[in-house]
């Protein structure tokens, strides 16, 4: 932070006259630099500005139906119908909606989780996954001030920003294996072993963003074991539960393995994608503690950290979630709708791969169907991506990440052809 007194100030004590204006001052903000554009959001901006009728947006990770339109789930509409116009909007408690948090913990820890029964989980409503991660990062900084966070390579870009702004030192661990377009398991395990004991590890619970590459169940067990040996703290970012396989229980498998193995974990959960509540900012941060007393203490500290950030979280999204999850029929409807979304994406993966193979691409595209969740790490280079955009009006991030949610039966052929054209000579 600049410490020097601005030149404009020193000679400027105006004392006379009743109309003391400020026009002679120069702006305090003259030296503020324009911030670099967010790479992902920049893609959408460029897409919107493109007049081509063939344009395809496979950039942003928000679900689209087979017509390329955003979706409001039926269960959400019904929940909103029930609450619209008849609730006052009083402040939630600092920890958020108790009901919403209770239901959310069941999704992650299991309906009959002993940890929930024993009240060992410190949990607060958070501002979607981002807010949950940030709250945890701030908590980590305050109560584990000597610790560092290990972040996979690659990861959602904002993870780096979050822990940086929380002033927690960052390290990376190997994750994606470019040659196989799969998991670099050996290097990952080495990194876990070589990290100082008691390091914090950020793990994507399912549907890794941006690669779509998840460890197998066996691999998760080995990771869990090694993390336990080293006394590392596992922090799970679960933004896609239900969205990966279509079954929320299955998507929580990694977390359940760690719980069985006796880890004390932290989890960031989000309803942005799996309930389509993106803009409502609904999520949950939980930290599994040794006992109820510790959980109470930890929860109080999480609330303390939230107070000078936003005091208490927004009520509407939480109300929608608790209305849905608290009503067996609505919950059942939700589970069906999540499966429909996941199935459509899985279907598009198959279609994209088949189309590419049909076009006679010399490359292997099996990773498209092996990867899971919203994203596919295509393996394309930034230059190939630029070519896709320039020549075919196809928009995606330059790391080659394709948002499968943007793929439809209407554009999959066009997309496959374009990808084949730009990659076939590589």
């Amino acid at each position, binding site marked *: 932070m600049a410490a020097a007194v601005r030149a404009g100030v020193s000679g400027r004590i105006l004392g006379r006259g009743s109309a003391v204006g*400020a026009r002679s001052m120069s702006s305090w903000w003259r030296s503020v630099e324009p911030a670099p554009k967010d790479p992902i959001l920049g893609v959408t901006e460029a897409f919107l500005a493109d007049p081509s009728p063939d344009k395809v947006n496979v950039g942003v990770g928000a679900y689209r139906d087979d017509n390329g339109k*955003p979706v409001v789930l039926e269960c959400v509409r019904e929940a909103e*119908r029930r609450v619209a116009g008849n609730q006052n909007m009083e402040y939630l408690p600092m920890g958020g909606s108790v009901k919403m948090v209770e239901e959310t913990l069941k999704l992650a820890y299991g309906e009959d989780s002993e940890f929930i029964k024993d009240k060992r989980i410190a949990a607060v409503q958070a501002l979607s996954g981002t807010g949950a991660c*940030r709250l945890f990062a701030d908590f980590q900084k305050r109560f584990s001030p000597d610790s560092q966070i290990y972040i996979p390579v690659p990861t959602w870009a904002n993870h780096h920003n979050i822990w940086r702004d929380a002033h927690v030192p960052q390290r990376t661990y190997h994750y994606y294996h470019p040659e196989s377009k799969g998991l670099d398991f050996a290097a990952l395990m080495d990194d876990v072993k070589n990290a100082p*004991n*008691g390091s914090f590890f950020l793990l994507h619970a399912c549907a890794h963003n941006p690669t779509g590459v998840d460890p197998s169940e066996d691999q998760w067990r080995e990771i869990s074991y090694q993390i336990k040996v080293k006394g590392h703290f596992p922090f799970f970012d679960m933004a896609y539960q239900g969205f990966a396989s279509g079954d929320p229980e299955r998507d929580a498998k990694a977390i359940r393995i760690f719980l069985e193995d006796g880890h004390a974990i932290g989890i960031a959960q989000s309803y942005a994608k799996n309930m389509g509540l993106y803009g409502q900012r609904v999520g949950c941060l939980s930290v599994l503690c040794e006992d109820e007393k510790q959980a109470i203490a930890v929860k109080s500290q999480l609330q303390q950290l939230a107070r000078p950030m*936003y*005091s208490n979280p927004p009520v509407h999204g939480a109300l929608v979630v608790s209305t849905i999850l608290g009503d067996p029929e609505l919950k059942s409807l939700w589970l069906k709708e999540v499966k429909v979304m996941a199935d459509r994406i899985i279907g598009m993966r198959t279609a994209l791969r088949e189309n590419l193979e049909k076009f006679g691409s010399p490359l292997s595209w099996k990773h498209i169907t092996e990867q899971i969740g919203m994203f596919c790490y295509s393996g394309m280079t930034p230059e190939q991506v630029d070519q896709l955009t320039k020549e075919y009006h196809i928009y995606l991030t330059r790391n080659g990440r394709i948002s499968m949610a943007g793929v439809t039966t209407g554009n999959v052929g066009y997309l496959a052809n374009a990808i084949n054209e730009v990659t076939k000579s590589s």
Partner: protein
Amino acid sequence: MEPDNDPDRREETSTAKHCRVDESAFARVPRAPEIPIYAVMIACSKDPSPVKLNLGMGVYRTEDGKPLLLNVVRKAEELLFSDKSANKEYLPITGLTEFRELSAKLIFGADSPAITENRVTTVQCLSGTGSLRIGADFLAKYYYQSTVYLPEPTYGNHPNFFIAAGLCLRTYRYYDPVTKGLDFQGILEDLASAPLGAVVLLHACAHNPTGVDPTVEQWEEIRQIIRSRGLLPFFDCAYQGFVSGNLEDDAQAVRKFVADGGECLVVQSYSKNMGLYGERVGALSVVCKTADVVTRIESQLKLLIRPMYSNPPIHGAAIAAAILKDRNLFNEWKLEVETMTKRLTCMREQLFDALHEKGTPGDWTHILKHVGLFTFSGLKEEQIAFMTREFHVYMSSDGRINMAGLSANTVPHLANAIHAAVTQIQ
């Protein structure tokens, strides 16, 4: 890859400062102290007395002691719900565009030079709290002066934003306990001796907790001192409309500062005046000397927001925008604000009259002079404790009374309590 399964290795390799690998990383997290006003509210909620009076937290209540869902809010929410074309996609990082523009007009006036000359950026944040935090973080990063002056006293959470941002706090005299009015000389002296360029937090209207606002003439002198010292005004406007019942009139202090061409930060909250409390609707504006600075500042605000919660919640802002942009809804809203304010004024008069009739010792005219939701009663801590014990009256220990917690039925009870406390405890 064989996992390392030699348990004896654990002890050897344990070098982390937080000791044993099997102890929770957060085993020694202490329980955070209860926030005083929350503790009061909890005590009140546990009190079984049928005559208990909750005059603590700063929320509006109707004559029946109930939260108020404004008619316009209900209508707006129903309108939003019936708009089937609306989706729940992410808002931009800076929030709902419509809301931002309308919010700026509400506080600055549609014909404000800051707006017409494109010299202001307004971003949607999570109510006043979230706006204060982003403003504080922005100052910490880009402003050359790290000292922030807060009025003595101020809203309990104010120091926390600036502390979280890493800034230094000082106070300026504000309230005179002898007159129960403004310590105007104290303000002028303290601002005159502030270091050049220091940030000064000002309550735009309806000071919390005292209810004491400067007069128009006093504001003018405050403005002159601030501009002549190059101090940076940071307005917190949480009660626009609650002083005079008129939104425009209550914005005058802010507008006079903007009219002189100088820079300032302004925070707005819609919690109270639109009853949107739990929806977390607010805005941060940065008024600059020149237009070219504004876009750069906006880009930097985005960098602060993204690692905190990515983008703000949509629901409340959509409601606010719907009200602000529709002539009928806006006019109806103005009337509802006026009605709320009239009720507060009525409660002031009734309480004053009741104390006057009882011949309660002391000068109670300050009850009539204070503005907004609160009155700084002047009662001492022991007197307040007495009132809680004997009369089940709950208020904050600094003597702040929320006038909205009163009704025609309960004023006599409060008057009795005050009378007893003042006569029995000196």
